[in-house]
């Protein structure tokens, strides 16, 4: 299996990616103690979490080097995840 998928994968700088993840985690934790408005914190924290997840998926799971089929399989559940989370929230906001 792997001879088809990994032999030509360029080696990214895994430690540089980890440094990015560590910095983003530190920013996340620091953000909680800044006293910023709750709504601002939520938006920034979710954005930071997506950034970290994207780094892991692209470089550690090698999604950056996969073909379109695997990328689609990875992307579709993320869209469904957002729907599953957002629809109940909108339901509460609209109908109480």
């Amino acid at each position, binding site marked *: 299996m*792997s001879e088809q998928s990994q032999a030509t994968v360029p080696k990214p700088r895994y430690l540089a990616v980890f440094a990015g993840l560590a910095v983003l985690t530190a920013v996340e934790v620091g953000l909680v103690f800044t006293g910023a408005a709750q709504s601002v914190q939520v938006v920034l924290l979710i954005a930071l*979490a997506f950034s970290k*997840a994207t780094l*892991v998926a692209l470089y550690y799971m090698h999604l950056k080097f996969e073909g379109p089929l695997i990328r689609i399989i990875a992307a579709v559940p993320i869209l469904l995840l957002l729907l599953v989370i957002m629809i109940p929230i909108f339901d509460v906001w609209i109908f109480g």
Partner: protein
Amino acid sequence: MTTADHAASNPLPGVSTTKFAFWLFLASEVLFFAGLISAYVLMRIVSPSWPDVSELLNIPLVAANTSILLVSSVTMVYALASIEAGDQSKLRRFLIATAVLGTIFVSIQAVEWVQLIGEGVSVSNNVFGSTFYVLTGFHGLHVLIGILFLFLTVYRAFRGRYTRTEHGGVELMGLYWHFVDIVWIFLFTIIYLV
């Protein structure tokens, strides 16, 4: 069937069927956690009372634990890179390091659970406890399963089952481990920080 025959009959050119199936499995896992996360978020919005998690939960400890899981992803990806380079010794060392780091992660999580239970937060006495234990519990279960398979992968590595060209097991192990890492990235944010 030879490898060449198998490649010729592969309906997905350029993608191994095993990896394709594993990505489908991971997709189903995303939706499994989506349901749990959705329930947590909804309960938090509609619940009349919700504890101050920054006081109740030990955020610095969990942040350190998050870093441990992130480091385990680094060791896992280096395990794969090692066998791709044909280095059996490094493969074994990085796999063992990953399993040890994963074990430390679940151990610290167990300590956190014991502390919380000691403070009276149970799965049945409030909505926070119910959703917290279910979410972190299912993630912890996934980590435990990952650790078991990591030790199996270590065993197979010591038996010389992986080579520079045949190391699909290590690759799938890595995909699973990184997926568990990604799930925790979101749980850490949603439960502990938001």
